[in-house]
């Protein structure tokens, strides 16, 4: 008899990742001894390319097996019983595709069947989701005719079909225009009330705006985990702006970590991180992006 849990709004879930490693070959690790505990709310994953964000998300989504380590969802080992999470999972992969000959309704009904949801409410739920991602007008056209952004929105809709309690979004804002990005952020905030949401993005401002907690990753390791303010604390009073002559820019960059360079006529306005700045530097409030660049450099 399989354990069936009713995930109500009051229930707090826990995803416990212990010493997780994924080895691709002799020398290359996707994840290396990665441990973290994730609870209800939004966890933003940040890290440069190859940090292991997508690998971690695929393993949590049960489509990839770890080389070692465990993931416990409310105490149940996912590698032994992946179906425990599959019923309550919403997953938007980074480079997913669609069946071009199906229309949006047919595709979402198909995905709903995979997730094991149906009944009389399925069609109205799909309609509302399609309205919410602004695809209802074209819902009867083959998905093969959709633009990249529209396909991304279909991806978002499918992740929400089964009232998921664990939601994994891998680079969800790719291809979305600014208005859609704002709408997506609002949606995520609504989701986080009673779910675990794991979100990766290269756009640090997206993570900074919506994540409750942030995990910084580099080369398969977890290098920082905590509230955004806690991570920003690592560069507090270390962020400055100075005007640098164009001839001195290269030497300046070699000495300091420049996080932003803006051209100002013959000079450059450089935002940088330093323990001791140069003369006439202006101290700036630190941001998550500063901390991210500082910690992953």
């Amino acid at each position, binding site marked *: 008899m399989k354990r069936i849990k009713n995930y109500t709004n009051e229930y707090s879930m826990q995803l416990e990742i212990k010493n997780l490693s994924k080895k691709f070959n002799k020398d290359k690790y996707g994840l290396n001894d990665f441990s973290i505990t994730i609870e209800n709310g939004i966890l933003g994953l940040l890290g440069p390319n190859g940090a292991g964000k997508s690998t971690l998300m695929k393993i949590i*989504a049960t489509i990839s097996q770890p080389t070692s380590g465990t993931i416990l969802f409310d105490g149940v080992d996912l590698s032994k019983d992946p179906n425990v999470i*599959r019923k309550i999972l919403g997953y938007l992969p980074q480079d997913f*595709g669609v069946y071009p000959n199906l229309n949006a309704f047919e595709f979402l009904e198909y995905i709903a069947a995979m997730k094991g*949801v149906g009944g009389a409410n399925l069609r109205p739920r799909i309609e509302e989701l399609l309205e919410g991602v602004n695809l209802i007008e074209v819902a009867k056209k083959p998905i093969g005719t959709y633009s990249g952004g529209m396909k991304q929105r279909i991806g978002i809709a499918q992740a929400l079909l089964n009232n998921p309690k664990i939601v994994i979004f891998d680079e969800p804002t790719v291809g979305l225009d600014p208005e859609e990005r704002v709408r997506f952020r609002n949606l995520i905030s609504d989701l986080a009330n009673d779910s675990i949401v794991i979100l990766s993005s290269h756009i640090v401002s997206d993570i900074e705006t919506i994540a409750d907690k942030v995990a910084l990753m580099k080369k398969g390791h977890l290098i920082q985990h905590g509230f955004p303010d806690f991570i920003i604390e690592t560069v507090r009073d270390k962020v400055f702006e100075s005007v640098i002559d164009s001839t001195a820019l290269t030497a300046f960059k070699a000495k300091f970590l420049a996080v932003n360079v803006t051209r100002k006529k013959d000079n450059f306005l450089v935002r940088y991180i330093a323990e001791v700045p140069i003369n006439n530097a202006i101290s700036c409030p630190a941001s998550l992006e500063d901390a991210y660049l500082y910690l992953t450099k």
Partner: protein
Amino acid sequence: MTSLKNIIRADYLQRTRSYAFLVTLLASIVIAYTFIPTPTSSYSTLRIGNYVGYSNAAWIGHNTAIMASVFLWLIGFYLVNDGIKKDKETGVGQIIATTAISNFKYLLAKALSNFFVLLTITIIIILMSFSLVLIRGTGYPINLLQFILPYLFITIPSIFCVSALAVFAEIILGRNVIIQNVAFFFLFPVLIGILNLNNNSKIFWVDVLGTKYVSDELISLVNHQFKENIITVSSGYLFGNNNSIKYFLFEGTNWSIIYIVSRFLWIGIAFIILFISAKIFNRFDFKEKLDIKKKRAKKIELQVPNNVKQIQLSQLPVATPTFGIWPFVKTELLMLIRMGPKWFWFINFGGFIALFFVPINSAHQIVLPVLWFIQINRWADIATKEKINRTHYFTYAAYQPLKRLLTAQMIAGVILSLSLASPLIFRYALNGNFQSVYNIIQGSIFIIALSVFTGILSGGKRFFEVVFFLLTYCNVSLIPILDYFGGINHGYIYSIIIMFINITLIIGAFVSRYHEIRNQ
């Protein structure tokens, strides 16, 4: 020249560095082994009347070169006819289109890459055949020249032509893979048919396979040596009459200059085909040029209105848990039906009607396997579409993906194949011939199980397409051992064997999908 070499090299490596190619090479070794039967085998592969040659280097070389030429024409086209399609799908084509490379140079590179892929298989066959010369060979010293020359004159020009033809088919028929596959299926018997039109030895000028000249040489040798009046050579897997086989000594062919020139002529024709293709090729813009009106109508422009409803998740109707497989079956069936051009269903309808009215034996032995064959892309798509469309992230994370999804995919395939065969099933049922009904059902399961198993194992469609083409070709040639759908009247034992093969394939499909899901 360097750029051409680099393109060919990259293309060749891209194609050969795959599990599917490794499977193809292993299959080639096995097939090459069967080209030279042992004296106790129940078949022969090259026979002049009742005569076969002693297994010396010349005979093995000629026999395997002829078989390789025919075999690589049969499967070669299916193995290599996706080089340009891949460039289009991956977007590499658009990058190529912006470079300075000429159409001819690009297509030549593709054809040469095709050629080297087929040449690799040929080399495997040569190595296997040479091992057979060493193991089973009679007559020393080994005549190396007469072993290798048949490959040079027969097989190599032949595979060069099919390489160019594959490029031409991709240019002419573009995205219509179904039409490409079906057109080639009907072209091959035409080529063979031309050779059998009459006994005019000059016909080797129209013999792209290059086998006619050697066949004539063999006939005249046997007729002269044994005072016979044989007029044809049989090649392929020839079953029966093995007890009456007589052996003769074959020391090689007297290669005439005219024949050698004819082979060069075919290479020249291949270049002309490429030249014509280059004139037609629109550098990955052909769909736009042909369908410009259609595309305008299709293009979806959607503005974001100001009053888009915000999703309130807590307010959405709650869908209830249902873990049945019928919604899958419905959608899988829908996808199978919608594959390919709509007008192709007129051809299917023609086949469907033919199954009602053609004499029942012909309907079963010829129409049914051909009707099933022309759905090859649908069958090949069943278990490979997840990877091809990159939806495997969803399907492999589905609730019970094996028990529910894979089962539903197979059921949908069987429903479609049985629906196509239904007129014949109906006729047999009316006659009370339930054994044939059972055999057709088993045949239908076999196709689907084979496509799913080979698709998952090889990670693509190609392997199944080649196997299914060979199988169908053997079916319409009425080769009993490969009759998986009871076209030739077999007993119950044969039906039981097919059932066990089906069970094995289904188990194999589930096990391989299980491993695929676990080892992403």
